């Protein structure tokens, strides 16, 4: 079995995704591959030039079965919704809501994938699943570390492909998994 299998059996409540502009097509495959009945919130930190979040919002809206929008400060986290970090902000996850910050870049990045994953792990612990796509470099490596420290589920590319990750996330919300909750 893959590294995606966790020892602990707590249900996943939140998915975080780390990417850069280089991961555009993987991100599209991932959003496209989510099942229509996917019930979890997904938060994406994706770095790119200028107001990249705005372009990404347009691109992903056309393929994702879930509503996609750019996160706002102090927005409550709703189920079955994809939130994109706005350009030039860090996104911190609090339990049940989103918090934006303008503290200096981390790993030369703002939004920083590491900070998103660290704060989400802090709030959700093992109830978190994290997806790191291949373009996020050192920022992504540190994000993986944060997942490991919290005992959260980690789904990364590599070894997994974007479509495998989408399928695995889909299983989290499948009826058999729901029953075990």
């Amino acid at each position, binding site marked *: 079995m893959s590294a995606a299998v966790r020892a602990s059996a707590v249900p996943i409540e939140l998915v975080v995704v780390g990417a850069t502009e280089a991961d555009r097509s993987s991100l599209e495959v991932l959003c496209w591959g989510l099942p229509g009945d996917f019930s979890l919130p997904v938060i994406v930190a994706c770095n790119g030039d200028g107001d990249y979040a705005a372009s990404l919002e347009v691109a992903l809206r056309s393929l994702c079965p879930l509503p996609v929008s750019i996160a706002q400060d102090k927005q409550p986290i709703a189920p079955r919704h994809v939130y994109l970090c706005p350009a030039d*902000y860090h996104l911190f996850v609090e339990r049940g*809501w989103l918090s934006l*910050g*303008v503290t200096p870049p981390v790993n030369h990045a703002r939004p920083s994938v590491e900070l998103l994953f660290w*704060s989400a792990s802090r709030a959700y612990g093992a109830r978190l699943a994290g997806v790191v796509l291949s373009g996020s470099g050192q920022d992504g490596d540190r994000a993986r570390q944060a997942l490991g420290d*919290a005992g959260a589920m980690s789904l990364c590319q590599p070894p997994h492909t974007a479509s495998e990750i989408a399928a695995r996330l889909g299983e989290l919300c499948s009826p058999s998994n729901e029953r075990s909750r």
Partner: protein
Amino acid sequence: MTHPIESSTRTEPVEQLFAELRDRYGLDYSGFARAQLEHRLREAARLEGGLELEAYARRVAQDEGVFSRLQALLSTRADSMFRRPTFFAALREHVVPLLRTYPSARVWVPACSTGLEAYAVAILLREAGIYERTRIYATDADELVLEEARRGVYPSAMLASAARDYQLAGGRSTLDEYVTSEGDFVTMRPVLADRISFAQHHIAAEPSFNEFHLVVCRDVLLQLGPALHARAMSVIDESLARFGVLALGHGETVRGDVDVVSRYRPLVPTERLFRKVVP
């Protein structure tokens, strides 16, 4: 086998640090947005020789130097001048014509930190030809950063990105015209500060002190938790004249008490410019 670490055990040293700040220095950060505050505290600890939070909490309690460095870090927003140039372009196009209709206009820049936003607004109003009949109130809770704001001295490294953003914002001149350079520092020309009053005011703890036609409060309320945020928003609301304009950061929207929120309509939605509408 993984062992999930519960967040309560992870945040314990942070609680200890909060207690030190409150009991020893009278500073209450309990209403702040927790994750980003914890991140900033961890950064501060790292800058003190890579300390763990627990050891750092003890140092803060024992060493006033460590404490004052922390206080400076928490009250300084190290951001650029003319952040998000499209905002300034929208301000020039949609808000300046409104301000022009008042015989004298008052602008408030709360939690101004070292003053860059206030100076940027001053430059814009000056180029629009309405600076002489405008007064900008730039306030902050921290007297030390206000002193820096009044001096208007900044590292020259800041100027390169600021000059580019100033041009992108549709600046009519060059930024060099507004500063004097000396070594590694630039100083804002005194003419810019002519119409700016830098004064102490704590937006999350003190009531409204004047009525304004424009409040520029971008990315300021982010650091507050929901309850303090709502309180600060009420102070802003009390301070805005009827049909006044509120500018928030591009990741923000009007949040707070329902009756406060209901008074705001988007003026330029993409730039989070809102108009206060009183029914």
